[in-house]
C-alpha cells in the first residue's frame, strides 16, 4: 500500500467549549484529488488550516495530522517551517485579500522560493498558470480577479509541493473566469501528479475538479466516496440536500417557477445609457418587466447589470434614455422620487453587510416606514412583514441584532424590510450568492411565494444561470453594457442564439 501524503486520524478541534471539528478521519494518497464539501460553519476550512498548523492559538487540536507520515502537531518549529509550502501549500480564499497590494506579484511568487532556497523561475510558474511573463511586474490591483487567483496558484506551486490545499479558490469569481481557473488547476494537478484537497460549498465545482468527494456537516465527516457515486446516490440526508440545492439547467424538476399569465408591463426601460466618466457602463438597454413577472438579468461581473439595476431604482442618474414605471416616467429627484422608491425595493447580495450592525431587526424592518412617515401602527406592520418573510413567530426575532441571526435569517430580515413598504417590484442583486446551499432553496421558494401571494414582480440580478433557471420567467443576458439576448427561460437557456450566452452556459460546472 502506498503511504498517504496526508492522513488525518481522529482529528478534533475545539475553541474553548465549542467543538468545530469532531473525529475526522481522512486519507489522501499522492496524486489523488479530494473535494471537501460543506456549508459555512461545517469545519471544512478548519480542517484545511490544521494541516499546516495555521489555526489560531486558541484552537485546541486533538488527534493526528500526518503529512508524509510526520505528525504536524508535534513537529518542531524549524521542521514545520520547512514543511510549509515545500510539502504542502495552500491556495487561499479571496485572492484580493491574500496578495500584498504594494508588492509586484513576481516578487510575491518568488518569496516562498527565496525562503526555502529552492530553485525555479517565476516565468515558468506564470507560464504554467497561463499568464504572460510581463505580469510579473504588475501590482495586484492591475490584475483581474481571475488573474489574481492564478497568481495564487503559481505561488502555491512555487516550491514544488506534493499536496495543494485549495480553500474556495473560485468563490468570488464569475462563471466564465471560474471555469478558466478550474481548468488551469485541473491541468496542473494532472500534469504534475499533485495531490489536491479542494474545499468548497459548491458541489458542482468539486465535481468538475475532484475524483473523490467528502462531505462535512457540523464538524463531522458524513460521507466519503467517488464523486460520481456520492452525487448520484447520496447516502446522508445532508449530502442529498446539498446536491438538490444546485439546480441543473434543463431539468424540469429544478424549475420552480410556475408559468405566469401574460403580464401587462410594470416597468419599461427604453434605450437607457449610463456613463461613469468616459466609460459607458450601460449602453442602449431596452427591458420590460411585467406585473408579477420574475426577470433574471444575467452576465459576468463588469457587464453593467448592477449599474442598470441602480439606475432603475433611481440611485443613479442615466445619461440618456427613459425608465417608465406603471406608465409614468421615474422622477429623478425630490418628493416624487421618494414616493417612487416605496414601489421598488432592493435586496442586496450580502445580508450581513446590508443590515446596520447596531440596529435591531425591528429597527431595520421599520426603517422604511419611518423614512416615509408611515409609522402609525408600526408594530403590527413590522410584525406582518417579518412573518411574511417567514420568520415566525416574529416576536422571537424583533429584538435580535443582525449578528445573532444566521445568513438565511438575515436575508429574510432584508426582505421583510422591503416588504413592509408593500412594493410592487423587488430588485434583488445576487440574493442567494452568499447563502449556504440549504438556505438558498428556501429563499428562492420565498421569492416565488411572494410573487404568488402578493403579485410581486422581481428583477433578479445574477451570474448564476442555475438560479435563473430555477426562478425566472424571462432571462436577459447582458454583455459589455448591452443586452445581447432576452426571451423566455427555456428559449434563452436551452436554445441560446447569441455566442456569449453559449459561452456562459458552457462555463457552468456540471454535476
Amino acid at each position, binding site marked *: 500500500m502506498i503511504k498517504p501524503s496526508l492522513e488525518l486520524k481522529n482529528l478534533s478541534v475545539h475553541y474553548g467549549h465549542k467543538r468545530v471539528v469532531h473525529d475526522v478521519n481522512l486519507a489522501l494518497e499522492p496524486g489523488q484529488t479530494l473535494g471537501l464539501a460543506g456549508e459555512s460553519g461545517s469545519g471544512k476550512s478548519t480542517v484545511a488550516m490544521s494541516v499546516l498548523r495555521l489555526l489560531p492559538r486558541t484552537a485546541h487540536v486533538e488527534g493526528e495530522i500526518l503529512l508524509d507520515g510526520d505528525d504536524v502537531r508535534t513537529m518542531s518549529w524549524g521542521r514545520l517551517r520547512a514543511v510549509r509550502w515545500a510539502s504542502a501549500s495552500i491556495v487561499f480564499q479571496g485572492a484580493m485579500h491574500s496578495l500584498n497590494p504594494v508588492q509586484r506579484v513576481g516578487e510575491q511568487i518568488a518569496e516562498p522560493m527565496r525562503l526555502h532556497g529552492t530553485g525555479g523561475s517565476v516565468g515558468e510558474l506564470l507560464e504554467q498558470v497561463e499568464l504572460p511573463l510581463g505580469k510579473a511586474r504588475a501590482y495586484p490591483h492591475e490584475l483581474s480577479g481571475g488573474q489574481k487567483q492564478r497568481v495564487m496558484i503559481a505561488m502555491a506551486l512555487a516550491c514544488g509541493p506534493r499536496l495543494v490545499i485549495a480553500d474556495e479558490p473560485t468563490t468570488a469569481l464569475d462563471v466564465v473566469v471560474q471555469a478558466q481557473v478550474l481548468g488551469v488547476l485541473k491541468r496542473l494537478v494532472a500534469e504534475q501528479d499533485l495531490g489536491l484537497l479542494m474545499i468548497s460549498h459548491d458541489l458542482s465545482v468539486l465535481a468538475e475538479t475532484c475524483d473523490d468527494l467528502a462531505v462535512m456537516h457540523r464538524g463531522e465527516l458524513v460521507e466519503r466516496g467517488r464523486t460520481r457515486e456520492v452525487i448520484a446516490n447520496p447516502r446522508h440526508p445532508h449530502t442529498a440536500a446539498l446536491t438538490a440545492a444546485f439546480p441543473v439547467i434543463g431539468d424540469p424538476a429544478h424549475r420552480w417557477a410556475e408559468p405566469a399569465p401574460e403580464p401587462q408591463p410594470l416597468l419599461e426601460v427604453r434605450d437607457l445609457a449610463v456613463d461613469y466618466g468616459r466609460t459607458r457602463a450601460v449602453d442602449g438597454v431596452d427591458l420590460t418587466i411585467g406585473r408579477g413577472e420574475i426577470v433574471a438579468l444575467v452576465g459576468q461581473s463588469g457587464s453593467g447589470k448592477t449599474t442598470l439595476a441602480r439606475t432603475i431604482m433611481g*440611485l443613479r442618474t442615466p445619461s440618456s434614455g427613459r425608465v417608465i414605471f406603471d406608465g409614468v416616467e421615474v422622477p429623478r429627484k425630490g418628493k416624487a422620487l421618494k*414616493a417612487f*422608491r416605496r414601489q421598488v425595493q*432592493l435586496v442586496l447580495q450580502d445580508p450581513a453587510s446590508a443590515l*446596520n450592525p447596531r440596529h435591531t431587526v425591528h*429597527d431595520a424592518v421599520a426603517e*422604511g416606514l419611518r*423614512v416615509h412617515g408611515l409609522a402609525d401602527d408600526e408594530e403590527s406592520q413590522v410584525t406582518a412583514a417579518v412573518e411574511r418573510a417567514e420568520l415566525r413567530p416574529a416576536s422571537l426575532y424583533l429584538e435580535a441584532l443582525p449578528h445573532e441571526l444566521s445568513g438565511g435569517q438575515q436575508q429574510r430580515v432584508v426582505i421583510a424590510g422591503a416588504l413592509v413598504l408593500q412594493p410592487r417590484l423587488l430588485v434583488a442583486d445576487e440574493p442567494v450568492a452568499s447563502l449556504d446551499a440549504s438556505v438558498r432553496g428556501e429563499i428562492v421558494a420565498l421569492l416565488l411565494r411572494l410573487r404568488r401571494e402578493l403579485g410581486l414582480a422581481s428583477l433578479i440580478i445574477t451570474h448564476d444561470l442555475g438560479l435563473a433557471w430555477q426562478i425566472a420567467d424571462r432571462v436577459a443576458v447582458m454583455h459589455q453594457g448591452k443586452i445581447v439576448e432576452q426571451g423566455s427561460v427555456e428559449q434563452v437557456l436551452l436554445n441560446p442564439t447569441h455566442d456569449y450566452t453559449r459561452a456562459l452556459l458552457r462555463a457552468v460546472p456540471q454535476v
Partner: protein
Amino acid sequence: MTGFRTRWFSRVGRGDGAVGGFLAHRAGVAGAVVLAVAALVAVIAPLFIPADALDVTRVSDAPWQAPGLGHWLGTDHAGRSVALLVVQGAGTSLFVGLTAAVLSVGIGTLVGIVSGHFGGLAAGVLLRVTDFFLVLPALVLAIALSTVLPRGLGTIVLAIGLTSWPSTARMVRAQTLTIEARPFVERARALGGGHGHVIGRHVLPSVLPLVLVNATLAVASAIVAESTLAFLGLGDPTRISWGAMVHQAQLHGAVPQRAWWYLLPPGLAIVVVVLAFTLVGRALEAVVTPKR
C-alpha cells in the same frame, strides 16, 4: 418620531459589554478616578474657601513661606496659600478644557460629516479650509486671537476651540466615508431615506464612539493649551488657573526665591489631569475600536 429617544437609549444600554470592557483597562479606570476627584474638588472646594484667603489685598500671612504646618504647600508672593490656589484653579482649567474640547470636537464632527457625506464642491472647499487650519501653527493663531479679542474665559475657549478641530474633522470624514460605502447605507437610500436619515440613523451613531474618544483626548490638549496661554500672560487676569499660577510664579521671581512650592503644584496638577484624560481616552479607544 415617538419613542426614538427611548429606543436609542435602549441600544446604548445594550452596550453594557462596553462598560465591562472599560473596567478591564486598569489605567483607564485609574484615570477616571483621578478625573472624578478633580471634578469633585473643582465643584465643591470653592464653596468652602473664604474669599479673603485668595484676595491679594486682604491676606495677612507672610509671603514666600515654605510648606509647613500652617500652609501645606507654602504661600505665594502675596502670602496666599498655594494649596488653596491650586484647588481654586482646578475649576478654571477643567472648565476651559471641557468647553474648548466640546467646541473643537463639535466643529470637527460637523465639518467631517458634511464633507464626507455630501462630497463634491462643498466638500472640496471644506477640506481646503481644514488643511489651512491644519498647517497653521495652532498656538500662534490662538495667541493672535486672544490678543485681538477682549480678555476673558470666552476668548480663551474660542481661541482653543477654533484652532484644534481639523484633526477631528479629518478623522470623522474618514469614518463617514467608510460607513457610507457599506451596503446598509445603500439599502437606506433605496428605502427612500434622504440625507438627514442616512446621517442621523447610520453615520452619526457609528461615528459617535470615535468622537467621544477624540473628545477626551481633546480635553487633555485643551487644558495644556489653556495653561500655555495663561503662562504667556494671555489668560483671564481675574481668574486663577493653573497656567496663570505658573505665570505669576515666574513673574514674581519664584525661581530666584527658590520657591519650588509655588511652581511645582500647579505644574503637577496639569500633568496629572492631562494624563488622566489621556488614559481614559486611550482606554475608551481600545473599547470602541473592534479588535482586528
